[in-house]
């Protein structure tokens, strides 16, 4: 045991001290944090108030276009050409120009700007314009737009999960899908990243010819397990550092820009509401109500996910999924002399992983279906498939079955890999065929 711990220590320390580890540790959180921060930051930056000059030659729209948090309409009566000429000197961000209409109600307009106006600004103005035009047309046809509005029905379906204690919780398939697929992809990524590290480590020991020196002191199995466990610890360290650093970066950002963000988040929701979610003429009061309902629903859906189970199973499936595959990766590394020879052997072990990722959407779409069930029970696919299913709620017996099969799978894979490994590490030269490896399995120690 003492020797395994020496090996684990070496494998861990040499990797953690590597430049690539330190760089990944810094870059990973920066990337993850920037994925979260940059869109918000850009949004807050571009959400300075835009002043739009409105020149309406039809005089139908004066004071009728609604301002938003970030877009303010200023109605001018000047001639369009003079405004255009003085645009640079003015503090307007754009000129919204409605020419004298050929028909009774104008449907044509122009937006002048020195910079390309953002999609959000353009679509907001378009919406406002369209809304007014539609209202006018309805009026023209003798229909009161308020009357029409009252006929629009707003219906909802709440999905409610009945959990075992009989407690009802509102769930949200989108939120569960998001969490599930994120967890699955994270496991996929970690298995590959650290599995190939195991493989490279084994190949390095072979090509540098240190292997025989070491296995005269320790058993090949000890060396293999030491390497696998050492690298698992590297993976956990990296993961924890990422979580901590990403949290820290996002936290610092939140503190530094908290006022901007809160302003942004309300305005963003308003925009969304105006653009698509809510029928156009809903009153601000209604908007707020629906919006708070939305947010509340998402929070309730998030809280309906059992995070103890989620995090617990993430750590379990991450560790054992990695351990299962790392054994295979170690066996492949031992069988070849260089990395370019690994392709042929990599294929069969990457297929189950890729299959579970490809089917991720499908599993999330029907988390209790037979395919989702079997994929989350079979050890090779269960680490990813079960992670995707867990946010939707999985019966405990299925989780227990999947866990016990994964542990059995890990033990089996390790014994299988060890048989290849002990022979492979001392074989140089010709790349072995599957037939050769089959023979190795039958050798007595």
């Amino acid at each position, binding site marked *: 045991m003492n020797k395994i711990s020496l090996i684990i220590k070496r494998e861990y320390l040499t990797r953690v001290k590597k430049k690539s580890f330190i760089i990944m540790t810094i870059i990973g959180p920066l990337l993850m944090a920037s994925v979260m921060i940059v869109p918000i930051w850009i949004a807050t930056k571009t959400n300075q108030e835009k002043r739009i000059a409105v020149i309406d030659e039809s005089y139908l729209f004066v004071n009728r276009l609604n301002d938003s948090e970030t877009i303010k309409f200023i109605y001018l009566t000047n001639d369009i050409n003079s405004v255009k000429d003085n645009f640079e000197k003015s503090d307007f961000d754009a000129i919204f120009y409605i020419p004298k209409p050929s028909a009774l109600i104008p449907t044509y307009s122009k937006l002048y700007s020195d910079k390309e106006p953002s999609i959000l600004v353009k679509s907001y103005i378009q919406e406002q314009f369209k809304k007014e035009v539609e209202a006018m047309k309805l009026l023209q046809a003798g229909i009161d737009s308020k009357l029409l509005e009252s006929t629009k029905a707003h219906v909802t379906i709440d999905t409610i999960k009945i959990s075992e204690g009989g407690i009802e919780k509102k769930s949200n398939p989108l939120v569960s899908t998001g969490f599930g697929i994120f967890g699955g992809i994270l496991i996929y990524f970690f298995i590959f990243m650290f599995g190939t590290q195991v493989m490279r480590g084994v190949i390095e*020991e072979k090509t540098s010819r240190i292997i025989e*020196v070491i296995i005269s002191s320790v058993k090949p199995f000890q060396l293999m397990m030491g390497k696998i466990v050492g690298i698992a610890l590297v993976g956990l360290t990296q993961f924890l550092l990422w979580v901590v650093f990403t949290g820290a970066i996002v936290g610092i950002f939140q503190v530094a820009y908290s006022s901007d963000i809160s302003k942004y988040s309300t305005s963003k929701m308003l925009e969304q509401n105006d653009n698509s979610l809510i029928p156009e003429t809903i009153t601000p009061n209604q908007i707020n109500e629906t919006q708070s309902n939305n947010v509340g629903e998402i929070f309730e859906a998030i809280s309906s996910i059992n995070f103890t189970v989620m995090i617990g199973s993430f750590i379990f499936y991450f560790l054992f999924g990695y351990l299962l595959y790392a054994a295979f990766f170690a066996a492949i590394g031992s069988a070849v002399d260089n990395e370019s020879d690994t392709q042929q052997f990599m294929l069969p072990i990457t297929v189950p992983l890729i299959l579970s990722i490809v089917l991720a959407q499908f599993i999330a779409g029907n988390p209790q279906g037979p395919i989702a069930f079997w994929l989350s029970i079979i050890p090779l696919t269960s680490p990813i498939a079960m992670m995707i299913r867990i946010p939707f709620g999985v019966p405990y017996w299925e989780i227990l079955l999947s866990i016990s099969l994964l542990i059995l799978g890990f033990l089996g894979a390790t014994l299988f890999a060890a048989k290849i490994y002990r022979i492979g590490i001392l074989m140089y030269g010709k790349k072995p065929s599957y037939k050769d490896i089959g023979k190795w399995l039958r050798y007595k120690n």
Partner: protein
Amino acid sequence: MNLLEVKNITKQYANHKALDDVSISVPEQSIFGLLGPNGAGKTTLIRIINLINACDKGEIIFAGKKIKAKDTETIGYLPEERGLYKKMKVGEQALYLSRLKGVERKEATEKLKFWFEKFDLLRWWNRKVEELSKGMQQKVQFIVTIIHEPKLLIFDEPFSGFDPINTELLKEEILKLRDNGATVIFSTHNMASVEEICDHIALINKSKKILDGNVKTIKNEYKSNIFELGISGIENELKGKINPAFNILSQIRDDELTKYKIKIPHTSNPNELLKEVIPFCSVTYLNEIIPNMNEIFIRAVGENN
């Protein structure tokens, strides 16, 4: 007293027999040469002794008992295929390998510093292995092989990659280790070094042991009563003058000397030969030709094939 007894070892691989009923006995505090052509099974035998491979039949007795895993801590093995982690620092790596052999950190550090000093490596302690020359790496490997003061040392082609000066240095150290109580098994193709340092040898060919024993005894067994006779002057012709029972095999003129190789019949002896030749010439020397290990190796393997 034999430190190591290899008894009737057989090892079968899928397509060939690597070892066929091989037995050797390595006396304590001796240097034992394990010889044989490429692919004869030497490395397999060494790996079986190191418990890296298991044998199908036979057993290994180490210090009087059946060998067990813990015994590898009292064996030092320098494999033929040897290397180091290239990216790791020299000292750190030497320490790691020593600790894998069961030496405590503090003790290992002290001993390593001593040996690094001795082999002029100390200033490389904190450098990466890849910065070292091949010879220096070999020295590091030698040091970590002996650092735990093993009872049994196994060197597979220890001198490959060494220049003559360092080969000499290494040879001295190996002899010193033997004198201090270690037993050494030595696998090599370099017959000159076998002759110089080995007390016993075993010759393996085609998975079988074909010859073993004390070096001097073997040499005596392989001598064939051929003597070299040197006489002064170049005009002396012995052929036809002496008793034809003394078979003249060759005759070489070399400056002031003529050298004859003569086979003496078993019924006779060198004195008889001298009596025969003295009337015709003045003898400068008479030597018995003892075959060197190289010749014995070639002959034994040739006969076996």
